[in-house]
């Protein structure tokens, strides 16, 4: 294997592709958490998105319906979470965990008949440019539309939170729901919207796995990516751009260590497999040292139940 420049380009392209589900799920969860809701059901919502996307593709043979359907399924399952935590005031942590367990179980049941069915090729954009330009070609071109969306999302999220009125309201609700309510903001509604948005993004992240990244259905195919996304949000101290950086590092080291294992480096395999987790945490901790900034970005009311005085 030669480390020529075009190989590195292909490598970077594959790293980008592998970090897409993390970016999508983490960006969605980031908005949810910024409104003060801690939804630990990311893994469950992702896997539901994965199976419903794949199933819809098989049934309708239409990728657009499959993608939209996976997002809708994420919305529906997160609606359960929203109803429980916002309307029935259940504990966020317990409800989120239950959602994950429920999602994994339900997806396995629904997916029984879809195991072994081959997926459909997902259209990629600018495929001619990918081949013709060395190095930059495989990095910039020849990806699915979802990847481009995923890479734009952290910047859009950042803009939304920092520059728009709605973003300001989301941050305000996450900071102090009581104050927000006293200012006449409908806290419950804002939180519902953020939860549903998070659900949609997790559904899309799941569909990316089952329709684009590895086009097939395998039981439990999210393989803990939902938990990584959750951890990314916290270690990135609720900053969308840092989520992107973290997801790339994680994806990058995952791919690199696979290559290192293949080449046969004399490092224990277990250590190499643990490397992505370790490095992501170390890098994110190092770039998020500014305690003042952490304080400003952390949603103060995260995970706390809010109820309106009557």
């Amino acid at each position, binding site marked *: 294997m030669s480390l020529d420049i075009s190989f590195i380009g292909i490598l970077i392209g594959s790293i980008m592709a592998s970090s897409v589900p993390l970016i999508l799920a983490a960006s969605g969860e980031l908005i949810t958490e910024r409104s003060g809701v801690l939804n630990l059901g990311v893994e469950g919502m992702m896997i539901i998105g994965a199976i419903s996307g794949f199933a819809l593709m098989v049934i309708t043979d239409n990728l657009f319906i499959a993608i939209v359907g996976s997002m809708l399924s994420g919305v529906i399952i997160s609606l359960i979470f929203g109803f429980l935590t916002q309307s029935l005031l259940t504990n966020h942590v317990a409800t989120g965990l239950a959602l994950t367990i429920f999602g994994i179980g339900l997806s396995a049941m629904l997916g029984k008949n879809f195991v072994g069915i081959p997926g459909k090729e997902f259209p990629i954009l600018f495929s001619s440019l990918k081949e013709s330009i060395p190095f930059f070609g495989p990095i910039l071109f020849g990806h699915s539309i979802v990847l481009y969306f995923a890479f734009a999302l952290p910047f859009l999220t950042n803009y939304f939170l920092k520059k728009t*009125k709605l973003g*300001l*309201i989301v*941050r*305000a609700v996450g*900071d*102090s729901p*009581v*104050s*927000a*309510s*006293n*200012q*006449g*903001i409908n806290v419950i509604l804002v939180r519902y919207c953020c939860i549903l948005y998070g659900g949609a993004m997790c559904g899309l992240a799941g569909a990316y796995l089952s329709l684009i990244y590895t086009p097939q259905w395998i039981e439990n195919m999210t393989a803990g990516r939902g938990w990584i996304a959750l951890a990314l949000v916290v270690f990135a101290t609720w900053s969308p751009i840092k989520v992107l950086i973290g997801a790339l590092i994680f994806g990058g080291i995952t791919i690199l260590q696979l290559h290192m294992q293949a080449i046969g480096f004399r490092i224990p395999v277990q250590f190499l497999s643990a490397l992505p987790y370790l490095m992501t945490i170390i890098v994110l901790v190092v770039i998020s040292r500014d305690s003042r900034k952490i*304080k*400003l*970005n*952390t949603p*103060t009311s995260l995970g706390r139940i809010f109820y309106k*005085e*009557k």
Partner: protein
Amino acid sequence: MATDLRISNISKIYPGCIANDNVSLQFKSGKIYALLGENGAGKSTLVKILSGVISPDNGEVFLNEKNLKLSSPLDAKKNKIGMVFQHFNLFETLSVFENLSIDATEDNKSLRVRINEILKKYNFSIDLDVPVLNLSAGQKQKVEIIRCLLRSPKVLIMDEPTSVLTEQETEELFISLKKFCDEGILIIYITHKLKEVLSLCDEVAVMRKGKVVSVSQTQNERVETLANKMVGQKLAKIKKKINISKNKDEIFKVKHLNFYSDDPFETNLVNLNFSVKKGECLGIAGISGNGQNELFQILSGEIITPDTSIIFRNKEIAKLNPKQRREYLMAFSPEDRISQAAVPELKIYENVALNNFKSSNFFEKGLVNEKKIKDHSKKILSDFSVNTDNVELKSQFLSGGNLQKLILGRELITAPELLICYNPTWGLDVGAINYIHETLIKINDQEKSTILISTDTEELLKLSDRIAVIYKGKLSKIMPSEEVTPEKLGVLMGGGSID
């Protein structure tokens, strides 16, 4: 245009408590109205109803004879009723400007222009682009006021606005409020501080147990008459018999107390030396932020400073931690009842158990001896007339006064030789203040000593045998309290000299 606000037969009943019982009041613009009452008298409920946060069970609110339907805070805003809550309704992690823009209807540019106009007009100096958590309490309150002013309110309600302010900030607030009043804004001022009513307000309505018990012109009232109306009985006047005897033993002696900190929010202490005699109360006066926090923490052992000598009952204790100091019969009552003295989420008896001694046997072989702690707690509750006998109650449901009684009780039931307290009556109502003052005097009568760090000069003059003033981390000379007048204290507290 004149504003006329009328509240008619408002009632609000919570399970087990009538917060507002048929309250009717009338307010007209051009005057500042006081709504006076002890904690729990129903003032806050009434203003929450006026601001639309909660809805009354019964009754109506009229603004200029128009019946208002206040079912949400938005309704109050639309009807130009502005409200500054006791606990600020700000978003700490957002910038000042973001806080103000959140419910604005105009674009950011013109909003900034309008905010700057207000800042200039009322002489407020606040940086609009720093996060609110960096502001002082006084500045935060100004942000709240600006938020109201942006909506050009007809009515401005202030709920206990001075409880978190320094004296300087209080004065500034009063000047602003008078200005607003002259501009035709109707001001309703909620408080339990009698002097503020007399110095600021034109009319005063007194509430007690959910009812309005009197409405009068403040010029016809005095502190005593208002206090009696508020409490509903005649308050005994407390005056301490000063006992200075030169021969008594020094029980507590501090030498070379120095403290340096890099934190700009902490005050350095410079060479403090003082001693306390048996049965004596040493008062330490000063405007808050002059080193009282640091001094209290060093005396209690939360901060250990090198080279300081603290002799207590002939033993050197400067290196001991708070628990060890307690074992030597010292007791502490910090300023912040909620976060320093007690854990609000814990039950009363659990809070009592926090202050455990080897001798108290609250814990046996690592297990909690619940019965013993509960019996002990019940004794505290009855001995210190806390308004409940339920030791299972969470401490957060106690009023400030009752919580302070519980804390003092917890500290005093072990019969300490020295009690160090910091603003023990901060934010309490007259009844509770009286009780705590009586308790503190009783300690001295029993030949036990106290150090009273307080920002309330009246309290210091009432309770201390000797008084010193702390200013910018330095202690003035210690004076016998009969030689001290409020004026002298005022000069020293402001950094002046009286010699």
